[in-house]
Structure formats: structure tokens, C-alpha cells
């Protein structure tokens, strides 16, 4: 029965090459497999499984975190956080590059979507950087790479997906992402500082405590958002899903009641975009549930795990193989599709090799963050280049510096587990 796997992979590849949406390609493969192996009388299950596949309570967090990001963009919250970032790090050489990174890290604590980060901050910070003499390519590279911190620093939509699909604690995944996310941000700032000194880029203003205090006061409500959301989730007061609802409520309160500058027309458009993004991911989940029925029935993930374990049972060797596999996959697949396709198949292997599934979740997320930066399929990079009007391949040349940072963090997280698991072990085990 394991011989059917190559046939399924070839058929899936052919459908995807025809530009059939990946979600539907998965569904078609599953329907044919079920029909051939179990008979046509099983087909009514198709509707039930696809309905059940889209009713997972923890996945409700996805539309709500998307909506929270949209509300932030529809009010002055994003601008206020940017002003604070200027006051905090604008005095360092290469100031606006640091502002860009710090701003992305602030945004990451509320939203969880890298594309949302680019859409929010890109049109504001990139023209400012280009005007101050930074090259268009560097500007796009630093904006794109720092935006990917949004999926590493909690909350994170790919982590929610991984948690639900792999039946892994989403809260522990969030906690495990904190240190790698901060390390990634600091690494990118170090690279920016090095390049700024080498190329003579400017500082923005000297450090002024009064300005820092002023911008801190102006953004204090916005800063309260991550404290409430992440504090609520980590403290066990709310689940990740409820934390997402809290994020929406808090962003609406701050934007609509405190700052009173919510742009309702923009909010409506963002809600439509959010609904579409949610539906696209959820349809993938629903059709993969269909494929999951077949894979589970045939015990295919377990067979792959056994096959792999007979070659090597060394967890570090397995992680190295999986890292290479995920990096290659990231070149061609969107992060949600990669998680949905890969996690159910490789997780039994990961568990059999004695690797903590939370640890592996952060490894997967880091690989996908790199995948967002590596063309040809690189959503965040391409969106950034379109906004900056920069050439994708020229930007990629500069971006190798930042991709290098993400790779270094990936290696550190892979081979020094306490980097991601230290906080999890301290708080939850």
C-alpha cells in the first residue's frame, strides 16, 4: 500500500502544476484514493469529513488574530508604535533600519501574520528609508525579513495551525517562540548596524529621554494590547482562541474609544481580506482532513516513520534531514500549505525519534519564516518588493544577510533545544 504514495505525490504535483488550487488538488487526490481503495459507497463521508474538518474550535483564533491586525492598521495604533520605535532606537547608526525591525517586533506581538506586518508598516517606513539614503534593495530586504518575525514571536498563525494539526499545546508553542524571535530581531539589528557603519548610513536623532517618554505615553494603550493578550494566554486566564477574541476587542477599544480614529471603510475592507485569508487556509485544512482519513486508514505516516527510523534513529540526523526538506519545501509552498501537508506525515517520525513536538514546531516555523523570504514562492518578500517597487532578485542578494540570521537562529534552535524550550520547561513542566 505504501507504493501508492509515489502515485499520489505525482498526481498531486500534476494537479498543482496545472494551477489547480492546492486545497482542491488535495481533495481530488483523497477522493480518488478513497474511491479506489474503499469503494464509492464511502463518498458521502466526503461532505461530513470536510464539514467536521472546518469546525475546530482552536482554529477560531486565526480569523480573529487577522482581524486584530486589521483593526490596528485601521487606526493610529501602528503609527504610534512606529514613533516609539524611532525614539527607542533611532539614535543608533542605521536608525530607520532598527526602527523597522523593532516596529515589526511590536506588531508581531499582536498580529501573527507577516503579510499583515508588511501591509501595515511597509508603505510608511520604506519611502522614509529610501528618502534618507538607504538603498531600495536594503530597505525592502530589512522590511521583508523583519516582517517574518511576526510568525516566530507570539501570537503566530502558523503555530496555531501546527498546534491544531499536531495536537500540540498552542500556548507552549507561543512561549517557545519568544526567545528565537527576539534573537532573530537582535541579529537583524546587528547586521543592519554593521552595514550602516560600512556604508555610512545616518542616525535619526540623538537619544532624548523626554521624547521617549512622550512617545511611550502616546503609545501606552497600544503597548497594553500585547500585555493583555499574551498575559491572558500565558497566565492561563484565557485560551489562545479567547486571547484572539480579546485582541480584537482590545484593538477596537483602543482604536475606537481611546484614540477615536478608527477608519471604518478601511476596517470593512480589511475584514473582507481577513475572511478570504481565513477561508483559504481553512479550506486547505478541510480537504487535508479528507486526505488524513485515507492516510490514517492506511497507517502511512507510521510506515514512513518506521522506514526512516530503520535508516537512522539519531534525532539530530533526523532533524538535519527534516530541516533540509522543509527549506526546499519553503521555496515552493506557502507556509500554511506546507504545515498542513507535512506535519501530519512527519510528526509520528519526530515523536518516534524522541524529539519534543513543541521544539519541532518552532523548527518548522523558523523554516517557514525563511521560506517566506526565498523565491520563487515567497509571499512576504514579493509583497514587500511590490510596495517598494524593487526587483525581487536584487533584493534577494541583500536579503541573504537577513536570511543568514534566520538560518543561524534555526541552527541554534535545532541543536541547542533550551533556546526555545528553556522557558517552556521553566513555566510548564
Amino acid at each position: 500500500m505504501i507504493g501508492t504514495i509515489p502515485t499520489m505525490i505525482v498526481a498531486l504535483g500534476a494537479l498543482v502544476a496545472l494551477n489547480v488550487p492546492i486545497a482542491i488538488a488535495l481533495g481530488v487526490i483523497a477522493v480518488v484514493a478513497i474511491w479506489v481503495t474503499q469503494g464509492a459507497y464511502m463518498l458521502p463521508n466526503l461532505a461530513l469529513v470536510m464539514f467536521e474538518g472546518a469546525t475546530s474550535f482552536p482554529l477560531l483564533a486565526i480569523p480573529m488574530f487577522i482581524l486584530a491586525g486589521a483593526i490596528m492598521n485601521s487606526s493610529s495604533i501602528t503609527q504610534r508604535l512606529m514613533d516609539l520605535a524611532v525614539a527607542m532606537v533611532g539614535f543608533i547608526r542605521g536608525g530607520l533600519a532598527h526602527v523597522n525591525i523593532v516596529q515589526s517586533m511590536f506588531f508581531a506581538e499582536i498580529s501573527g501574520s507577516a503579510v499583515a506586518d508588511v501591509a501595515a508598516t511597509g508603505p510608511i517606513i520604506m519611502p522614509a528609508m529610501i528618502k534618507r539614503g538607504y538603498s531600495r534593495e536594503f530597505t525592502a530586504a530589512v522590511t521583508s525579513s523583519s516582517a517574518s518575525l511576526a510568525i516566530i514571536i507570539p501570537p503566530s498563525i502558523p503555530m496555531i495551525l501546527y498546534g491544531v494539526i499536531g495536537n500540540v499545546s498552542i500556548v507552549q508553542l507561543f512561549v517557545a517562540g519568544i526567545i528565537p524571535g527576539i534573537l532573530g530581531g537582535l541579529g537583524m539589528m546587528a547586521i543592519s548596524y554593521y552595514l550602516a557603519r560600512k556604508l555610512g548610513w545616518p542616525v535619526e536623532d540623538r537619544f532624548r529621554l523626554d521624547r521617549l517618554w512622550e512617545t511611550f505615553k502616546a503609545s501606552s494603550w497600544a503597548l497594553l494590547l500585547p500585555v493583555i493578550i499574551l498575559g491572558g494566554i500565558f497566565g492561563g486566564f484565557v485560551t489562545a482562541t479567547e486571547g484572539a477574541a480579546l485582541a480584537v476587542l482590545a484593538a477596537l477599544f483602543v482604536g475606537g474609544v481611546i484614540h477615536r480614529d478608527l477608519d471604518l471603510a478601511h476596517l470593512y475592507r480589511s475584514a473582507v481580506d481577513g475572511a478570504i485569508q481565513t477561508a483559504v487556509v481553512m479550506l486547505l485544512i478541510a480537504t487535508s482532513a479528507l486526505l488524513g482519513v485515507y492516510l490514517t486508514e492506511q497507517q502511512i505516516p507510521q510506515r514512513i516513520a518506521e522506514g526512516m527510523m530503520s535508516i537512522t534513529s539519531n534525532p539530530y540526523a533526523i532533524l538535519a534531514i527534516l530541516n533540509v526538506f522543509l527549506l526546499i519545501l519553503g521555496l515552493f509552498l506557502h507556509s500554511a500549505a506546507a504545515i498542513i501537508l507535512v506535519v501530519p506525515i512527519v510528526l509520528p517520525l519526530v515523536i518516534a525519534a524522541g524529539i519534543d513536538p513543541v521544539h519541532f514546531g518552532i523548527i518548522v516555523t523558523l523554516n517557514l519564516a525563511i521560506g517566506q523570504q526565498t523565491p520563487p514562492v515567497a509571499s512576504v518578500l514579493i509583497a514587500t518588493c511590490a510596495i517598494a517597487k524593487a526587483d525581487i532578485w536584487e533584493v534577494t542578494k541583500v536579503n541573504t544577510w537577513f536570511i543568514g540570521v534566520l538560518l543561524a537562529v534555526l541552527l541554534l534552535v535545532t541543536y541547542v533545544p533550551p533556546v526555545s524550550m528553556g522557558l517552556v520547561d521553566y513555566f510548564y513542566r
Partner: protein
Amino acid sequence: MQQFRQIYDRFLEVIAVFLMTLVTVIVTLGFMFRWAGSSLVWYDEIASIALAWLTYFGAALAALRGSHLGFAGFVNSLPAQWRVAATITASGINIAFFGLLALMGAKVMQAIAGLTLVSLPWLDQLWVTAVIPVASVLFIISELLRLPAIIEEARRGPLMDAELKEALGGHADEVAAAARAEAFRERTP
């Protein structure tokens, strides 16, 4: 036809935003009542069902706007007539899949008529699962409405990757025009 497409787009858009709002309100009410010490027994079941509705109505809207994740790279490397043939084939596969789903959904509805939800015993599951056949038909309508435009796009130049469209949001049309101009320049000696 164009006017009908716009009205249809608006119709799906309003439903999607309504469901997005509904999901948020239900979950928010759920944890507020839990904090107040009187948990709503129905909230997680109904919120999950609302998510399924959002998924399928949103999927029909995403189909109309060509936002489902795919990979256009191979098709874009083909000559124009093959691009058009591949586009029509892909669309046919999408329609066939959702046609089957609509039929199976209708069968399931008949089979489960009379069963009710666990948390709301007065609500027949028939109405809950109706989303599958109804939204499948809407998906097919979306696919058919989009077909003339996507065939024209395939004939004129490279198709824009759905992922890129999602990533770009408001910038999508601008980039599509630039890509077409680029393809035109490449073909022009």
C-alpha cells in the same frame, strides 16, 4: 455579466464579513460569560459551526477573486494556447470537485435530517450542514463567473499567483499590469 459579478461579489462579501463578526462576538461573549461565572453551554459548538460557514462562504468569495493558493509558475512557462487549455482544465477540475461535494452534501443532509445539535437540541443538524451543498453551488457559480476573465488573462500573459494576490491585497492589479508589460517587452524584439 460584469454587473452580475459585482453584485454577486458584494453578496458574498457581506456574508463573509457578517460571519467574521459573528465568530468574534460569540467567542467574546463566551469568555465574558465564563468569567462572570455562568458559562454558555452552546458557545464553542456554535462558534465552531460559524467557522465552518465562514470557511465555505469565504471559499466561494476567494474563488471569485482567484485567491485560493496555487502555483502558476509551470502554466506561465507554457505558450498562450496551452496556458488557456490548462486554465480551462483546472477550472473544470474545481467545478467537478465542488459538484461532487454538493451532491454528497445533499445526501448527507437527507441522512441526518431529524438529528439535533448537542448543545442546542431545538436546532436540526440539517440546517447546520446545509452550508456544504449551498456553498459548493456558490463556489461553482464563482468559478463560472471568473472563467471568462481568467481565460483572457491566460491568453494575454502570465497568470498572477494566487498567493501573490493574497499577499499584495490592494497592489495586485498594479503588479499584474507590470508583469504583463514585462512579458510584452520580452516578446517584443
